[in-house]
């Protein structure tokens, strides 16, 4: 599965583990949620970065105690119409202050890249390498945004006010 990280095709150095598999030392791993929670402290004490794959029907609040020690959280999109992951992402970033890699995996469409980026994802597992090229244009498609979403794109409401504050009285008359 090609990985887009910060807008570029990147090598995925993480090994995806199943529920049963032993967790190797010194290797970057992504562990399923239930497995992780059953043994979180042990897994995090291990040598090597740890990620967790979190299902979209479980509260991300459960992850809060571990977030500063997690390198990656993978949120899943079982199909492109299921948008729970967007809310989970915003909660992880904005409420719980997660700073690591936030990865979207599953069925995601190019036309959703901008939404995903705005919700706080910085890594996407995509279907085709060509999606990486589409990423830049998908993110550049819009220059106007109407709402705050926790990213740094200022909503039109605020840009208008800033512009009004910046114009001289002469310009306002015109």
């Amino acid at each position, binding site marked *: 599965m090609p990985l887009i990280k910060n807008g570029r095709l990147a090598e995925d150095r993480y090994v995806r583990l199943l529920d049963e598999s032993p967790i190797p030392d010194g290797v970057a791993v992504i562990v399923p949620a239930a497995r992780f929670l059953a043994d979180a402290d042990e897994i995090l004490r291990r040598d090597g970065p740890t990620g967790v794959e979190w299902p979209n029907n479980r509260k991300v609040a459960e992850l809060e105690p571990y977030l500063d020690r997690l390198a990656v959280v993978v949120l899943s999109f079982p199909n492109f119409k299921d948008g729970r992951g967007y809310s989970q992402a915003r909660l992880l970033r904005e409420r719980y202050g997660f700073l690591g890699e936030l990865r979207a995996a599953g069925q995601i469409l190019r*036309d959703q890249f901008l939404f995903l980026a705005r919700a706080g994802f910085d890594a996407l597992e995509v279907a085709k390498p060509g999606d990486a090229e589409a990423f830049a244009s998908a993110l550049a498609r819009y220059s106007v945004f109407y709402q*705050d979403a926790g990213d740094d794109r200022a909503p039109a409401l605020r840009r208008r006010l800033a512009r009004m504050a910046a114009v001289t009285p002469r310009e306002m008359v015109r």
Partner: protein
Amino acid sequence: MYLYDDFDRTLVAERVVEFRDQVRRRLSGELTEEEFKPLRLMNGIYLQLHAYMARIAIPYGTLSSEQLRMLAHVGRRYDRGYGHFTTRQNIQFNWIKLEDLPDAMADLARAGLHGMQTSGNCVRNLTTDQWAGVAAEEVEDPRIWAEILRQHCTMHPEFTFLPRKFKIALTASKHDRAAIKVHDIGLRLHRNGAGEVGFEVIVGGGLGRTPFIGKTIKPFLPKRDLVSYVEAILRVYNLAGRRDNIYKARIKILVHDLGADAFAKEVEAEWLPIKDGPLALDPAVIADIAARFRYPDYPRLEENPPELARLRKADRRFDAWLDNSVTNHKVTGHAIVTLSLKPEGGAPGDATSDQMDAIADLADRYSFGEIRVCHEQNLVLPHVAQRDLPALWRALDAIGVATPNVGLVSDIIACPGLDYCSLANTRAIPVAQELTRRFRDLELARDLGRLHINISGCINACGHHHVGHIGILGVEKNGEEFYQITLGGRADEKAEIGALLGPAVPYAQVADVVEDIVAAYVELRERPDESFVQTVKRLGVEPFKERVYASH
């Protein structure tokens, strides 16, 4: 009118560029119909029985004459010379070719029109009172808040893939003309004991196959908190709403399953951490939006000019129209005029391009260039000088939109039904057309008083049959069209779901049955001014049932 600036225009233009690319990919075969579907849906394009259908947003039902002319142009150039106004204050074009759609959208964009937020599982076009800003009893113009929410929800990165579509309606009047209690969120602007203006927040109302009246979860929400609170509701719904069954995915099911109190608690918990963040509305932001709503510079005019009384006496048709279609305006000497899109034998809500052009011209001449769309599928000229009413009436009458049946038995709300819609099981428009013929006698209609008939061609309830005083729902039985009749529904501040009259009747009998119901009402009412819904409320459906089924 709300004035678009370069930010709004840029966004709409960027949307057209994106859409043009998507259509190109579809036409070249790069995208399958299945892949194209979510993309077109985000622009209001449905695949109907015969062709693609384009639904164009008319936010909170307000149009400029320039915009109405553009709709007329699109109807003429790309469609068959007409458009269909919907119960969500939008317009639909039924016959546009896929290869023409990008050009049609580009033309619409020149007038600030688009199809964003009109389909898909997102926050749909917001609706409000068609008399917003001009109703005498209003607390303040609800469209300012509708616009703030419209902007917030447009292409919202978190809420574009909700469990199901999401509809918000607002009102600022005691008399609810926006049906806020049957919306996912209903917002009622009102003044509290301390004299402050804020919102009553109602959630979980809705029609469809499981109708519910919404529940109040916050009696008074300060204005500054409107966006953050709506965000909290949407987040709770996005995370917890059902996705396993399309028929149980609306927020009404979640609110019902959790209970309104528990739902309110979840919203509160989600809201408190974001309430004082960037979503708290800065008074300068509110003032900026409010300042972009331009109001006419009304001339000072006398109330009830003598020429009205003169013409009333001279012309009974004018008199009837004035009584029926003209309403008090908050400014002295002015009036609100409703244009009936329900002529005898017509399809409810249809307007031809020629009519739209003529109405746009009349709006320029008599209504400061502004038009409103009602959820009852009629149009409104909101700022008419009373002294202009005779001239306006003649002009409206000449183009067939002055039938004095607004709010009466022949002012029927109907979905497109099987004639257009791929979801429908039965026809709706022909039922409406037949009923307008049966009730062509305007004297009789006036005597019957307020009587709303709503027709849906399937259980999805786009014709809002549950809240019709007489509701008609088409169902298919062994390949034949049958219709269930409900009585006593209403969508206003006393919202109620109608009660079933009895077994469904075949297509051929619907109009007869409705006539029998109406005759029963005339017999049963206590006094001439006891309205149809009052009579049903007092007696229940039984006496109607006895009379109707005795004769069929």
